[in-house]
């Protein structure tokens, strides 16, 4: 009890922290920076005041974008308890919808009413509200909240929160990977401290970060990345302590074949590879689906840009000098890169990784077949795809190829509930699809006696029941 003060220091917001802003179901990851305007749900504010405050505090946005801690009692919203659907048959639709005028609302604001109270007023003065479907009511409230609510909670980031944030705000950036599906992946791949895990993802770093969180800084994670460089914005949002980054390695997949063939030279720098990589970086950019490249500036700002390459130089006279410095810098960087590559290659060469996680916009089958070679026998792997068809291909290929057992093609179905007295029911909207997973376990390649008729490397019995006659 005496060390409460010490305890709390871990729970205080510091400058430079990666935090998550929350209002209702809406999340946004930002870094705490002094004097930096932050946009959230159509409002602007500064985070200067939150430094030193405790995590999970709710702040009120007051004039000038200043954040003030809200009084404890004033907890979040009770607009949920609205009683839709069940007793709305008595309302006469008199054609007049909202009885409050804009002036009325301004008056309420001047009287110091909180956003939530104003919304309550709006609901009570709306004759059509009760006539709306519950779904429409939710929509109405959300819209009004966006307009009038002015609180924000500041949270410590976690896999749970970031997975929900990405799914809610920018599903395209994470290949529409739903949080419950990500949860399955982490468990099916037996991610835990002390193991050596391969990750191939184009989910903004969310999957990588989630794997790292589950490993708690123990063991090693090798990010197998396509194109010019590893994408890590999502990893930064986790705000891991710096030692977590010691376990993180990266390896460009364009060297996979060379590594497997034993022809990868990591002792000297390879300029061709570098130029090739930047080529691909450009290409990478182009391959980004349009929807992802669009998006409002606000949404884009959610992600901190990783990598510091490609800077502009406006001043012509200093060009020469800077070019030299840059060349030097590049050399140092390349040396660093080489070392990193060598370290990652060393980890991979032994082909004894403990797990493989794939979640990308690439066709998963060749990715899987290529990376599976790095696993020890008796280790789990899991592949995510938004499309069942591409996992059918993986499944078929693995059955042909052998070397895996326990293959399962699954998806999960997620339902949220409203639990309120006399108004309990599933939430009226649900997520359409959470994506599909193919999971399995590697086994030792069969060098003993090639099994005569069967190639799938799995004992018969059960399988024979599900032949293709039915239907």
């Amino acid at each position, binding site marked *: 009890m005496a060390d409460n003060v010490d305890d709390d220091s871990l729970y205080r917001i510091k400058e430079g922290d990666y935090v998550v802003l929350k209002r209702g179901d809406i999340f946004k990851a930002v870094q705490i920076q002094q004097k930096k305007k932050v946009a959230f749900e159509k409002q602007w504010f500064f985070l200067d005041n939150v430094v030193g405050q405790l995590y999970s505090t709710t702040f009120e946005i007051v004039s000038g974008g200043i954040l003030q801690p809200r009084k404890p009692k004033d907890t979040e919203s009770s607009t949920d308890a609205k009683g839709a*659907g*069940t*007793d*709305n*048959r*008595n309302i*006469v*639709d008199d054609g007049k919808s909202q009885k409050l005028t804009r002036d009325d609302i301004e008056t309420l604001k001047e009287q110091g009413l909180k956003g939530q109270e104003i919304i309550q007023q709006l609901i009570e003065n709306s004759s059509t509200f009760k*006539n709306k*479907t*519950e779904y429409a009511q939710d929509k109405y409230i959300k819209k009004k909240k966006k307009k009038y609510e002015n609180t924000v909670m500041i949270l410590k980031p976690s896999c749970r929160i970031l997975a929900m944030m990405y799914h809610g705000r920018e*599903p395209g950036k994470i290949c529409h990977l739903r949080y419950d599906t990500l949860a399955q992946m982490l468990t099916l791949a037996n991610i835990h401290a002390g193991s050596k895990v391969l990750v191939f993802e184009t989910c903004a770093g969310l999957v990588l970060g989630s794997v790292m969180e589950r490993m708690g800084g123990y063991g090693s994670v090798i990010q197998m990345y*396509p194109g010019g460089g590893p994408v890590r914005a999502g990893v930064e949002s986790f705000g891991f302590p710096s030692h977590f980054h010691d376990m993180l390695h990266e390896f460009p*997949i*364009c*060297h*996979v*074949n*060379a590594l497997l*063939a034993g*022809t990868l030279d990591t002792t000297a720098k390879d300029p*061709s*590879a570098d*130029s*090739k990589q930047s*080529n*691909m970086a450009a*290409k990478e950019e182009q*391959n980004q689906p349009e929807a992802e490249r669009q998006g409002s500036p606000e949404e884009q700002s959610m992600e901190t840009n990783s990598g510091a390459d490609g800077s502009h130089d406006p001043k012509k006279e200093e060009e020469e000098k800077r070019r030299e410095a840059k060349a030097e810098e590049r050399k140092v960087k390349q040396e660093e890169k080489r070392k990193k590559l060598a370290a990652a290659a060393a980890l991979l060469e032994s082909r004894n990784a403990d797990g493989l996680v794939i979640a990308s*916009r*690439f*066709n998963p089958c*060749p*990715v899987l077949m*290529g990376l599976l070679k790095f696993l020890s026998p008796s280790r789990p792997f899991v592949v995510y795809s*938004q*499309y*069942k*068809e*591409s996992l059918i291909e993986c499944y078929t290929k693995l059955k042909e190829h052998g070397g895996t057992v326990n293959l399962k093609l699954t998806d999960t179905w997620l*339902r*949220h509930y409203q639990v309120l007295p*006399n*108004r*309990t*029911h*599933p*939430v*009226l*909207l*649900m*997520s*359409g*699809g959470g994506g599909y997973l193919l999971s399995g376990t590697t086994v030792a390649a069969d060098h003993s006696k090639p099994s005569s008729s069967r190639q799938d490397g799995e004992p018969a019995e059960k399988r024979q029941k599900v032949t293709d006659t039915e239907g």
Partner: protein
Amino acid sequence: MSFVEYSDFIQDGDVATVYMGHESMIAVKVQQGAQTQTRYGVLRHSTDLIGQRYGSKVTCSKGRWVYVLHPTPELWTVTLPHRTQILYTTDIATITMMLELKPGSFVCESGTGSGSLAHAILRTIAPTGHLHTVEFHQQRAEKVAEEFKEHRVDHLVTVRNQDVCKDGFGVTGVADAVFLDIPSPWEAVRHAKAAMKKQGGRVCSFSPCIEQVQKTCEALSDQGFEELSTIEVLLRVHDVRTVYLSLPDFGPDSPAQAQPDAAVKTPPSHAPIALKTTTLPRDIPGHTGYLTFATKPRT
């Protein structure tokens, strides 16, 4: 045109469905001389609609075209004016089968609401059945009666403006099936029983909340209903689309290819593959209501 009989050509007084695109349709009352403003421009009824074949493509004033479709209860459900929450086709289809509706069925319903289910019932029980529908909101009862007339199904239906929980359905011992979509269905269960044929029949109650279901099941059991069964049916609409998946480049395959001269500036030639697949919308209906069915035994 009627909602229970197809016609080939659009006539004055018909209610036609103007199809502008998926999920974008309107119902139009066809009147000599009238015109309808759509987002594709003006439709002139006398020239653009009357005398045309149902299913024809009609060009609006803005040069865009639409299709004019024969009304069906299902098209009506997606175009009707909402005066209340309505039942949609997925639930309606389930209700129709599970209540064993067919031509000649006598049905009681409350509340009528916006008439979405009622139209589907009438389609199914025509030409020899009858629907007794009870709506306690006067304005709504009048409005829906008017629509039945316009849709030429008024000979198949009696609309009553009363409180079903207090006053029942206004008929006794005639119904093969009863449908309840009211806030307190348990208060109407005894009226449902009274309305039904002594030989028995089927009843259905639609409620969004599980507490309503619990009370209704209790009331149904108490009133001697059998074969209680509560279900939920959810629709998923799949979007058909072609997606393109990139292929990974693991680098040159053999050591020979790995020679610098071979690798330099050769961009990876892995064109994305096309995949025909379906996706679900980001948000889909997660719940409409629970459907509780039961059988009234012979009494």
